[in-house]
């Protein structure tokens, strides 16, 4: 009998989530921040699939995961477009130098 249970998957997703947050907070480069966001999304996705697999309704959670993947694709496209725009305006993509929000 396998000793792997729901908790194992949840722990992995927790770690992935924390790593994603770390990436978002500490990286200067906007593209790196995006990668952190992708990690966070994937962590959430693991949770969806794991809960649905262990919760007795295997397909519905997967649908949500599918939707999240689609959203992630849309988000990546938009975010990269914005990053390109920022690059044109500021000539770099370091998020710490783009602090117009303060004004």
């Amino acid at each position, binding site marked *: 009998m396998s000793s792997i249970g729901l908790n194992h998957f949840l722990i992995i997703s927790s770690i992935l989530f924390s790593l994603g947050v770390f990436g978002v907070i500490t990286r200067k480069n906007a593209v790196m921040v995006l990668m952190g966001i992708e990690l966070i999304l994937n962590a959430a996705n693991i949770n969806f699939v794991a809960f649905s697999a262990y919760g007795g309704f295997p397909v519905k959670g997967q649908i949500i995961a599918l939707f999240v993947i689609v959203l992630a694709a849309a988000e990546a496209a938009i975010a990269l477009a914005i990053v390109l725009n920022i690059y044109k305006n500021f000539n770099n993509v370091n998020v710490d130098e783009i602090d117009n929000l*303060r004004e």
Partner: protein
Amino acid sequence: MNESTLISLSLFALFAPLAGFIITLLTGKRLKTAYLIENFIISLVLLASIIALFVKLAYYVDKDIVSEITWIDLGIVPIMGKLSIELGILLDNVSLIMMFVVSLISALVHYYSIEYMRGDKRYNRYFAYLGIFTFSMMGIVLTHNILMMYIFWELVGLSSYLLIGFWYEKKSASDAGKKAFIVNRIGDLGMFAGILMIFVTYHTFTFDKIFAAIGEGILPFNSEFWLTATGILLFCGAIGKSAQFPLHVWLPDAMEGPTPVSALIHAATMVAAGVYMVTRIFVMLTGDAMLFIATIGALSAFIPATIALTQTDIKKVLAYSTVSQLGYMVMALGVGAYAFGFFHLVTHAFFKAGLFLGSGSVIHSMHHEQDIMKMGGLKKKMPITYWTFLFYSLAISGIPLTSGFLSKDGILASAMSFGSLTGYHIFAVVGFLVALLTAFYMFRLLILTFHGEPKDHHKFDHAHESPALMTVPLIVLAILSIFAFYTLNPLDAQQGWVLNKWITTPTSVVPESARYPFMVNHETHGSAEAHGQIIHSVEYTESLHHSHYPAMFLSLFVALLGIFIAYMMYEKKKMDADKIAGSMKPLYNFSLNKWYFDELYGVIAIGASLRLTEILKWFDNTIIDGIVNGSGWITKVTSAISGWFDNWVIDGAVNAVAYISGFFGIALKKTQTGKVQTYVALAVFGVMVFYFAMRLL
């Protein structure tokens, strides 16, 4: 042909104009020929409604077909019980005849407008508006519940507003649009209240269910008085839409719109919607409500007829004539002549649309001259327009062999028998008086426009017969005004198929004590029952029969008298019109100034607001100022006390607060870096704080 085909045809006729509106509106800016799409669609609609009418009359003449869907199912609602709102269409003879009338006139007006509006800068948009108007009118005609009717009611109001103000660069046109919209709204308020009364009482909007409930004896607030009130409130909508007294003031101003629009909306269809609505709710009207309706109808038949005598704008004369004829129909319904009222609606729709289109033809060829005093002699230049116009004038005056004679004669006979049964002879008197006036002013218009010598030679020389697209609709409408379409006997419509088979008076569902006495059937009349006409008593049937010939001769006499006077006055000039006008100066001015209704409403609205401002001024001067002065004194005393308090206590507190917030501001300033990442970090930190807080609690 089965019922579902009929339903599909009607639904097509309902929704195709909407599609035409959307397509034409969206493509109109780019595509120069978008109007052809709209014209093509309206032709299909006409075809569909002709087929539907034939199928209905040939196979289902005694059967009402209903098709409905549940729109909102509210389930069990507290207090109200089970509640659901249905949408649906009701196909009976009345609605299909009306559908045919609407689509025919709409189609003719479409074709006519191709020529009339040529060169307008919003050409395609004009056709789009015609499309949405046709859609909403079809909605009113076909619906089987009063909620949908109200929705479409407002939609025709909107499209009428758009079309009256179509040339909105002209201030008078945009003002007229606004006036029509606002005056209509006053009437619709009453109708809305009536609908609410019905919904509160019967928990449904569907006509059949409401009538069934009334038939079972369920009344609003359990009293016949409130049933009367409901009927009158619903009728308020018709007062507004059909331009009845006292809300008739908007219709003449609505003539600012393009003339084909006047023919379609403000003569034949939309203004008839009010009358149509009354026929729909006819069975739930009590005797008192019907008397009210008859009174309003008689007033609106008489007053505009007197105004029309002196107007010189060709379209204004026709507009007042429309109001007057609508009053006729309403009066007919009020005196219980359901079939004649609706019959007159149909015949009037044809010849009045024809009159407007004819006047449009004149205006078009005279380069937008509308004053009949500057016209004359157009008979030779525009023969088709002249002969059709003459025929319409004969029809509206009620000369035999025309459709107008049949319906008008029926209404007058009904009014007479109503008088002999109830003692209210006034309606018959007003009816004959209006018939006289109508014949007079129509022939005055005709003679001044087409006969005699041209007064404006410059314009006369350029006048010409209109192109075929404009004359063919005139001819079609003239043909439809011939008696033979309605009955084979040109003197009595009762024996024709329209009144005998197609339009049968429905049975009233109102408690017998609240009906007119003659609408209660005491003994079953064998032959009448066979036709389903069991609502009237035997006395009524006999009285109507007796008054038929007197009414016919009398109406013929007054019509000929009216025509004769007009002929003498304007053609032969045996009587000097100006001298007669001079001898009755006050009356003449009264009529010329439209009974001063606009001024009266101006005085009421403005005077009332002036009065109100005076009251408010007094209130301001004595009460408000007194309070202000008194409180000023109190303030002075208290301020002395509070001044001391302020200096020591408040200032101390304020300074302390300022110091504290300054301190925190300096401390927290560092967190507002403007960097997104700082904010994310703080959010994560916040989540953790929450977690610990939850754990500790």
